[in-house]
């Protein structure tokens, strides 16, 4: 899957799960504020990542993620690691 396809997939499940307008999701926007995440919602973020990409996220992995771009980069690197493992 190309990077842009992965980003579109991420945006799709974030819109679906957290019920936000798609046009509010931009690379520089703040992930927590835009999605309205509280501490409980991070649990659901772990669930949707696992169900869409098949890997489990640890709570501490979210520490450095502020913007959507940070989030995309994190997912892309994890997907990359997974693909490397397959090779």
């Amino acid at each position: 899957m190309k990077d842009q396809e992965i980003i579109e997939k991420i945006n799709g499940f974030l819109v679906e799960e957290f019920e936000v307008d798609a046009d509010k999701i931009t690379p520089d926007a703040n992930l927590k504020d835009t999605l309205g995440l509280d501490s409980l919602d991070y649990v659901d973020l772990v669930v949707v990542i696992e169900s869409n990409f098949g890997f489990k996220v640890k709570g501490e992995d979210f520490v450095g993620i502020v913007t959507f771009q940070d989030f995309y980069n994190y997912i892309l690197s994890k997907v990359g690691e997974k693909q490397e493992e397959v090779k």
Partner: protein
Amino acid sequence: MNRVVITGIGIYSCLGTSLDQVRDSLYKGKSGIVFDEVRNSIGFRSPLTGMVEKPNLKGILDRRQRIGLAEQGEYAYLSTLEAIKNARLDEEIIDRNEFGVLFGNDSSARAVIEATDIIREKKDTTLVGSGSVFQSMNSTVTMNLATIFKLKGINFTVSGACASGSHAIGIGYFLIKHGLQKGVICGGAQEINPYSMGNFDALSTFSVRVNEPTKASRPFDKNRDGLVPSGGAATVIIESYESAIERGAPILAEIIGYGFSSNGGHISQPNVEGPVRALEMSLRDAGISADLIDYVNAHATSTPVGDMYEARALNTVFGGSKPLVSSTKSMTGHECWMAGASEIVYSVLMMQNDFVAPNINLETPDEDSAKLNIATKTVETKIDTLLSNSFGFGGTNSSLILKKVK
């Protein structure tokens, strides 16, 4: 002591999802029992159940409010919304009077099973999601309603098996009577999903009259072969008489008596003495004699032993006066944790509309039920005072007495 009145009712049941629909079903003697293909395919002895439509609350409640609601909580939200509307309550009144919430609920099986399946398969508890814990606890209904409706008074769940809903109203009545609360949103809720009833099915308690679902629930009939499970939710808003008058609320009925007891015997086999003590306690609390009861909404679930003991208890207490008796479970099936509250809603609808709903499917009374004055057809009559019975596993008994306010 405060007088306690009912100012709002709401219902989401297999007889209808509004008070008007349910009133019409009760009047017509319409059954809500169906053959459930899912139960049939997963090894249930009985595929029969009462059924309601799954609510779609997207766009009505926000995501956080929705994901903590188990199925019975969704039903309870809708019945409570209806009750709040017809009680003419709003957020300001609820807040000013510190309304509380007491619901009967005694399981939340689906959420527990689904979470357990995920943990077993994935070996990671996080993957159950954030809503699971709020759906899984027995207090799921009250914790969610209290949050959604911003309630600030009493807030807990009453688990008393199939008398849960009745005890919830009874406890609320005591709190208001003794001046500890001005208003309480009471009720009962019951999940319908098959897995919540599997271990009950295991006891061979359910009717297997599979070719005639609407005739399967036949309380007091000699040829009954077991109960039919059912579910949904019912809400009964109660307030002090003073509070209701002060805010110009509709007064649907007054609760004048609550009696309770425990059989102190077998876990599933009832007896006569326990229900008699609850009945007599409710009459003492109401300060009336048995002959003033016009109508008894019986607990009778369509099990031979349970119906027999209730018939004997009713004959012991009401033998001389013979009030009209019917079990609305003949139409609804057994709404279990919800039944004690829904049957108050059904009874108030009858009281408001001057009829007694029929005990459908009673074709051949047995030795004990023949001594009761059971309404086999709809009876047009004024009801001034009525009594509603609810009993449950472990021998828990509850009797509530309602009176029309003129």
